[in-house]
């Protein structure tokens, strides 16, 4: 009896040990990645690197200025396209809890969220690049906006669902029309959640490379025309990483450092907003 209990207790401890070991081993890659990025990346970062354009191999002093500008442009483009649609669809879903169309829409959002980014890249290529006969920032922005949509829709829906029904009633009882109630009472009450969702979706697409391969394509020159190919951080990292030149490899690390900072900053702001601005009911 005693022995059996000891065996059971031993198994219990062993299992717990294994769970902890595996759980914490999973965090190890994070530190390795952050270590590599910092070690290899920080050394190349200086003003020239941040502001200069890429230069041919052999010339020193090249940078990722055009890639940073391109990434910011892509964020703005895809945000402008997806935010209004995303919020409107989110409101629609939060208002239509049941109903045939809304459950189909919900299913489509799930499917869209799971669609591989490379497929979306091909779609944007066929829809935008082929008709315009050129790679362009526009096509990249459209591809990325399709990837942002599901995130914005879901967070908007979830946020608005949590807003107490009695707020809506309070507004309607004052004779406020339904659409104004939604726009002036319900949306502001859910604003922090929605903004958080938007920032998280931006964090998600900032590092997306696959949809840009055949759309925004990359450009070693500075370009502000949305109908021309444009550089971007993830594309530049890919380009440098796949090159055979050690110098460009360090550039890839430097650009990675900047990209990770970008995504982390968006994530942190998102968390800060959802913690600080949270509407109290």
């Amino acid at each position, binding site marked *: 009896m005693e022995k059996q209990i000891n065996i059971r207790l031993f198994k219990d401890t062993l299992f717990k040990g294994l769970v902890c070991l595996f759980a914490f081993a999973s965090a190890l890659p994070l530190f390795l990645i952050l270590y590599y990025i910092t070690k290899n990346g920080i050394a190349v970062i200086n003003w020239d690197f941040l502001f200069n354009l890429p230069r041919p191999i052999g010339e020193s002093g090249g940078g990722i200025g055009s890639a940073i500008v391109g990434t910011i442009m892509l964020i703005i483009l895809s945000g402008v396209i997806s935010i209004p649609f995303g919020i409107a669809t989110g409101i629609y879903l939060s208002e239509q809890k049941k109903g045939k169309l809304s459950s189909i829409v919900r299913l489509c959002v799930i*499917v869209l969220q799971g669609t591989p980014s490379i497929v979306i890249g091909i779609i944007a290529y066929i829809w935008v690049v082929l008709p315009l006969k050129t790679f362009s920032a526009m096509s990249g922005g459209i591809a990325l906006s399709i990837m942002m949509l599901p995130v914005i829709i879901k967070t908007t829906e979830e946020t608005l669902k949590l807003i107490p029904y009695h707020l809506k009633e309070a507004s309607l009882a004052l004779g406020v029309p339904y659409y104004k109630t939604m726009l002036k009472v319900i949306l502001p009450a859910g604003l922090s959640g929605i903004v958080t969702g938007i920032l998280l979706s931006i964090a*998600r697409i900032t590092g997306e490379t696959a949809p840009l391969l055949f759309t925004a394509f990359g450009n070693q020159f500075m370009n502000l025309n949305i109908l021309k190919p444009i550089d971007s951080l993830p594309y530049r990292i890919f380009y440098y*990483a796949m090159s055979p030149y050690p110098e460009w490899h360090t550039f890839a690390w430097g650009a990675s450092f900047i990209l990770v900072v970008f995504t982390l900053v968006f994530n942190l702001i998102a968390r800060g907003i959802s913690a600080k601005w949270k509407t109290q009911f």
Partner: protein
Amino acid sequence: MMSNCKSPAGIDRSEKRFTWILTASGAFIVVLLIAIFFTLFITALPAIKKFGLTFLISKSWNATAESFGSLPFLVGTLLTSFLALIIAIPFSISISMFLGEYCKEGAISNFLRSAIEVLAGIPSVIYGLWGIFLLVPLVRSLEMQLGIVPYGVGILTSSLILAIMVIPFSASLGREVISLVPGDLKEAAYSLGATRFEVMKNIVIPYARSGIIAGILLAFGRAIGETMAVTMLIGNSSFLPTSIFSPANTMASVIANQFSEATGIVASSLIYIALVLFLVTTIVNIIGNYVIHKISIEASKEVT
């Protein structure tokens, strides 16, 4: 008194316009998805007509002979994804159990949770870069010790990176399902003198099983569609892989590697692959989400 107000008829119009806009943007998502499907289907049609379904089982991908089959990429995709899942499962289940049962709150679990979240947010292309500089040399030296051609890149390398990438995803799903296990069930078992391990083995895991499986399924959906890191690490070979050390291509990586230069039937064949990839991820996602949805409904019923 209401001088500055819209007339009731004006309000009515705005009201109608508002609901119309909402419904239209909802419907837009459906149209978008249907359009994606048909765009892929129509542009893949030349290849579909030419190769039919044998495309899926033919193993030659030869541009000069204009004969295309996607078997090498299907096999490459399945091999990398399965291998990645096998590597990832012990880790992600451990995280789920740790965060969902052993250590639900406190500094340590917050730390682990944030680490996992950050890991999930790191861009694919950076995983690829890191893989080139850490995993490729590691796998290469392993290959040298085994006495096989030391490519460094290939299925195993890609699987390792994929595993790291899907761990956060399936772990967060797993944690949710495990924390849905009703407390009174566990307490009943504890009161009978069960150890925590026995409660986990006999109560928690069986109860959460379908959720965990759904999580693995969704992670699989992720893995088969993952593009950049795999593209950078798999070696871009169009031959049927012969071992887990072979360079290969997945469906996603062959598109990423070859679509920019492709024209005519090659492009059409690549889009055919994209269509297959789209359909498979769609099915996997619908099933996985359906299971999760059902579980959360049951859980909410039990609470009330």
